[in-house]
Structures are given as C-alpha cells and as structure tokens.
C-alpha cells in the first residue's frame, strides 16, 4: 500500500506545489492573524493563536484563532479534489489505482501538509505583526507547543473529513467549501455546546474534531495533544472508510 500511495502522493505534491491557490491560502493564513491583531484589542500576540480557556460557544473573538486554518485547508481541498473530477484527470488516477482508499489517503496527506504550512504561516504572521505593533509575547511555551501540535494532529481528521465531503460532491466544489465552513467553524459543535455548556456532558464534546480543537488551547498539555491525536485518527479512519465506500460504489466517469 505504501508504494501505491507513494506514487499518488508524488503526483499530488507535484500538482499542489504548482497550484496558485495553495500559495494564496498560505498568504491568507499569514494575513489573517495580522488583520485580527491590527483590528482587535489584544495585549498579547498569542491571543490570536488561541485562548487560554475553552469557549465552546464562541463569542466575539472566539473564532479568531489558528483553528481557522481548518477552513482554509477545507477550501484548498475542495478546489483540489473538484478539479480532479472536473478535468477528468481522476480517470487517469483510478485506471492505475484500483484500490480506491489510496485516493482518500493521498488527499488527506495533502490536507495535513497544507494545514502544517498554513499553521507555520499563521505563526509567522502573528510573530511579525506582534513585533511590529509591540504586543506582548508572554506565554507558556509548553502550552503553545501543545496547542500547535494538537491543531496539527487534528488536521488529519479535518483533512479526511473534507476529502470525504468532496469525494461525495465531486465537481460541485461549492458544497465542499460550504462543508469547510460548517465543519471548520465547528458550527454543529457550537450548537451542541449551547445546550451542553456548564453541564457534566460538556467534556463529551471533545470526542468531536472541533470540540478537541477548542480544548487544545494555550493552556493545553501533553494529554490534550494525545486526546486530539486519538480523536483525529479515529475520525480520519471513519471518514476515509466512508470515502472509500463512496468511491467503490459509484461510477468514476
């Protein structure tokens, strides 16, 4: 399987690095913390990365966090996958790759790689703007590191989710982008949180990707990283399984 996916990955990376929207998304990832820092009333630059508490029901600047890169990764994957189907190149892929899960795995890896690049750009944007505007950088290094690692771990699950959505909608990338917003902003989890906030059930929200993403804040620890990783891998397995099922049972072209 590694050999099979490797050939698909080399093709996807070759294409990704020649796709203008990838670089555009990197720029957006760097610009977003800059805009938030410049427009908001923040004393500490790291506040745009994440909060120190876990506000499930977001209010005000609740969305202003590094978790936004999940939306950007979702948009990128929507373009990436829908163009496979629109151009018909998908025929070339599936003629060679009889095992349909290879496709989902490769796109998920592309999503994780893109997310990692966007996280780096987001951090660069934060640091540069923070330095220019003279913000404080006081933070628990372990907390920051665990927060970033958790987000990276969660990008596996999110990428698998966006891959599944786009494999289902194929050419209609509008649905893929809508899915990126619905799931990337954690709308469903937020809605659930509105009813569960403050109750004994609230920690259960962590079993969802966005729930874990919110919990992985600047006061995160190694356990949170582990929780995020387990949650992410479990959902990635489910979503990849569904993608595989869809690809196996529907005509490609």
């Amino acid at each position, binding site marked *: 399987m590694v050999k099979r996916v490797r050939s698909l990955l080399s093709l996807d990376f070759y*294409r990704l690095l020649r796709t203008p929207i990838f670089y555009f998304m990197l720029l957006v990832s760097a610009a977003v913390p800059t805009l938030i820092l410049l427009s908001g009333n923040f004393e500490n630059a790291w506040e745009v990365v994440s909060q120190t508490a876990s506000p499930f029901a977001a209010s005000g600047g609740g969305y202003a966090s590094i978790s936004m890169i999940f939306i950007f990764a979702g948009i990128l994957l929507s373009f990436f996958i829908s163009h496979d189907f629109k151009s018909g190149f998908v025929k*070339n892929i599936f003629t060679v790759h009889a095992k349909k899960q290879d496709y989902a795995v490769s796109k998920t890896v592309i999503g994780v790689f893109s997310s990692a690049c966007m996280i780096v750009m987001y951090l660069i944007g934060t640091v540069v703007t923070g330095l220019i505007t003279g913000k404080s950088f006081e933070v628990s290094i372990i907390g920051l590191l665990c927060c970033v690692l958790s987000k990276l771990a969660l990008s596996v699950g999110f990428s698998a989710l966006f891959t599944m959505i786009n494999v289902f909608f194929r050419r209609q990338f509008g649905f893929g982008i809508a899915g990126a917003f619905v799931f990337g902003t954690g709308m469903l989890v937020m809605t659930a949180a509105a009813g569960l906030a403050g109750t004994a059930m609230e920690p259960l929200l962590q079993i969802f990707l966005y729930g874990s993403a919110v919990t992985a804040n600047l006061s995160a620890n190694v356990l949170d990283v582990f929780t995020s990783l387990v949650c992410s891998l479990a959902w990635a397995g489910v979503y990849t399984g569904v993608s595989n099922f869809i690809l196996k049972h529907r005509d490609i072209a």
Partner: protein
Amino acid sequence: MNAIETHGLSKSYRKIPAVQNLDLHVPEGSIYGFIGENGSGKSTTEKLICGLLVPTEGEIRLYDKPYTDTEIRSRLGVLIENPAYFPNSTVYQNMMMQAMNLDVKKPHNDVRRVLELVNLTSVAGRKFKECSLGMKQRIGVAQSLLGNPRLLILDEPINGLDADGMRIVRETLVDLNRKYGVTILISSHILGELSKIATHYGIIRQGTLVREVPASAMSEECRNFVFVKTNNNPRALQALRGKYAQVEPNADGIRIYNEEESANVSGFLFENGIAVSEISFQKVGLEEYYLQTMTERKEVNKNG
C-alpha cells in the same frame, strides 16, 4: 492467454442496460478492433475494463487475474473519450503527473520519449487548453504510452486527427504491437484506418457482442469480386445476370462474384455491345462487412 476476458459483463444506468452479458476475449498480443454504432456500449465496456464504472454484473479478468490487480493496472495505458488533463497546466506538467501516477522511474525521460514518438516535443511547454483538438488527441495517445504499457485501451484515438496524425498514431501502435507485443484494444469509427492494423475484431450492437472474429477469418468471409462500370449499367446487369450466378448492382457499378470467370467479363460485355469504362478486382472491406453484420443482426432481431 487472453489479455482481456469478460464473462457475463453487464452495466445498467437506472435500469437501462448499456452493456448486456458481454463475453469479450482479447487475445494477448493482438490489436483488437472494437466496433459498433454510437451508443452501442463500446466506451462503457472500455470504462468497465479500466475500473471507471462499477459493473452491474459479471466478471472482468486481465491476463487471467482479477482486473483490480495492482501490478496489471500499473501497466495499462488508456485513452478514453478524450485526454483527461488539467487545462491550466502545461502538456509537460500534465504528462509528468501521469508518469508519477504510474510510478515511472525516470518520469522526465519517459515524458520526452513519448512526446517524441508523436512528434509533439515542441508543445511541451504549452498549456493544455491552448492545444488544438488534433494535438490533444496525440497528447492523449502519448500519455497512454507512458510507463511502457502491456495493454493499451484506446477509445477513438484517431478522432480529429489529420492524415499525417493518423499515420503517426497508426505506425506507433503497429510498432508497439510488433516490437514489444503490446496488446491493443481500439475502438474507432474510422473503419478503413482500423482495418489497416487490427488482427481481431469485436462487433457490438445495443450493448451485446454480435461477433468476435480474427481478421484472417474475416478476410476469408469477405469475398472477392469484379467491379465493372459501363456506359449502360442496367443493360449490363441484365446481360451479366444471364451468364453469372451472383451479380449485384452496387453504387455506380456492378459486382460479379465469380473469380474464375472474371477474365471473360470484359469480353462478354463487349460482345453484347456494352462499353466498359472501368473494371477492377476488389474485396469486401471492413466497413461493408460491418454493415452486413449489423443488417443481419437487425433482421434476426426483427424476426424474433
């Protein structure tokens, strides 16, 4: 061994059958001309073999292994309908991606090799969407040759090509088949061109395989005849029918299916005061054979 073998292969779209109970046998090392009317199920069959469609029923085997076998699939060169490339990427980039997809060891070299084969190295840097239809077809053929395929599946590869383009594609395919034993399944409406290279034929109608025949056997079935054009064809026809058993009017001339007596045709007509303006020995071609087969089939269907 057969390179492609299907057993009871069927595919329906919303209960409307596109391919029914198809038993196809493409011998290894052959050039298999797959012919049929528009919508007869050729492309559907080819897509099924390539794993792009999910069969409703039946089995597909490639080189006696299930068609999902990874190793065999990586040696499959395909061009179905039209080349499937990213329009904003260059020809070279698109071909590089396909070479990587096939896990070709030195993709750059292989891309250059196949582009040279179809005389298109000059357009490597051009965006795919900026290429003409003929170029795109040749690029598609070149793409199918990446990674030294063992089996080629080509759907209308010479569509939109000029005479020179057709010749290049034909020669390339024959070369691959003869030198490297590549098996080729090729569908085309340009039967004259197909008849120059095919070693076997499969005729499909309304999703059903009507006939599978080696080119040599077909050639035996296709009778020789003498074709004559005269200054008075109706009179000539009448006179010839009195002398020969099998005489048929055809287009602007007459056919006499009797080789032994053919030398006397000209003299016989002269004796009857009919001037011959053209006389030649001919053979029923693929196109006519195909049309005859289809007509027979239609009559069989009509008679239940």
